[in-house]
């Protein structure tokens, strides 16, 4: 089973210069746990900011989310994989890199995101297919 079958194609983006407050608002509003941080003049590489980054790197440190830039807390690089990667290989990469989500890419374009819950769901389906 390939990751493209189980990925979520709803990927939301945010500017690196936006505040963490904006990121929180977006994540709560869209009911998602991560945003792709667009590259900017200062940070050339795209990154990802997750609910975990927001809580651990800003809220838990009693910083003001309104005055911290998203780019400052974003994780880089984005871990990308081809759409034909098997879900088990994707799970291995997530374990190896210690990340909760990997991005499914085609060239420069992000097609979707494959997360821990997607890995668990696809494992149940693989089991049922046996």
């Amino acid at each position, binding site marked *: 089973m390939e990751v493209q079958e*189980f990925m979520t194609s709803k990927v939301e983006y945010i500017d690196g210069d936006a505040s963490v407050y904006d990121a929180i608002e977006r994540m709560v509003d869209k009911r998602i746990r991560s945003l792709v941080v667009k590259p900017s003049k200062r940070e050339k590489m795209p990154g990802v900011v997750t609910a975990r980054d927001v809580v651990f790197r800003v809220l838990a440190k009693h910083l003001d989310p309104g005055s911290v830039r998203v780019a400052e807390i974003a994780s880089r690089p984005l871990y990308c994989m081809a759409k034909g990667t098997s879900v088990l290989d994707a799970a291995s990469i997530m374990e190896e890199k210690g990340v909760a989500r990997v991005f499914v890419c085609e060239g420069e374009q992000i097609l979707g995101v494959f997360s821990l819950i997607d890995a668990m769901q696809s494992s149940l389906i693989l089991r049922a297919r046996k």
Partner: protein
Amino acid sequence: MFKELLSFGKKEQKALDHMTRHVQLLCSACEAFREALEKRDFRLMETVGDLEREGDIVRREIIGNIYEGAFLPYLRPNLLKFVETVDEVFDLLKAASRYYRDLVLEGEILYECTRIAVLNLRMAEMLYITFQAMLKGEALKDKTLAIRIYEKKVDDMKVYISKVLRGIRVQDFWEGKALSDFISNLVGISDEIEDASDCLDIINVSMK
């Protein structure tokens, strides 16, 4: 146990063979739909209608077998409900294939629709696996859970597609209606397959 209870007569075996054929045809129709959508092949899309008609013939055979006295009476309603639900999936596929002829799908909406078509195919295949497992008297828990997971996935995509749809410009009312009807038929398939798997679960439980 299930096999013993179901396969004690020729009538039952005949009906079960037809039911197996019915679900296999459904898998073929879902596969044809997916491939036609992916390759933008209108001729292949027409075969969905042909498979639906073939499915209809098989459905009538099954109903005939059951009314001729196949199976214990208390099993018949749920077996019939299963067959009718599978038939409903055929109808949705056929309707979607007809609306597709009037549409030019491209970009994000085509991509999302193709993904849903793949998930529909996987669900149909899983329904076949579930049906076979039921005939062997195996537990269906893993299988029906897999179908529910697929359905939830399609459900999430449904919400996203409805947002994408709002950004699409249409020429006139009829193009908008065809697009809307195409999508609602396409995303409705997963609900019906889930209902069919629930029927199998009920039949399985009622045998214990």
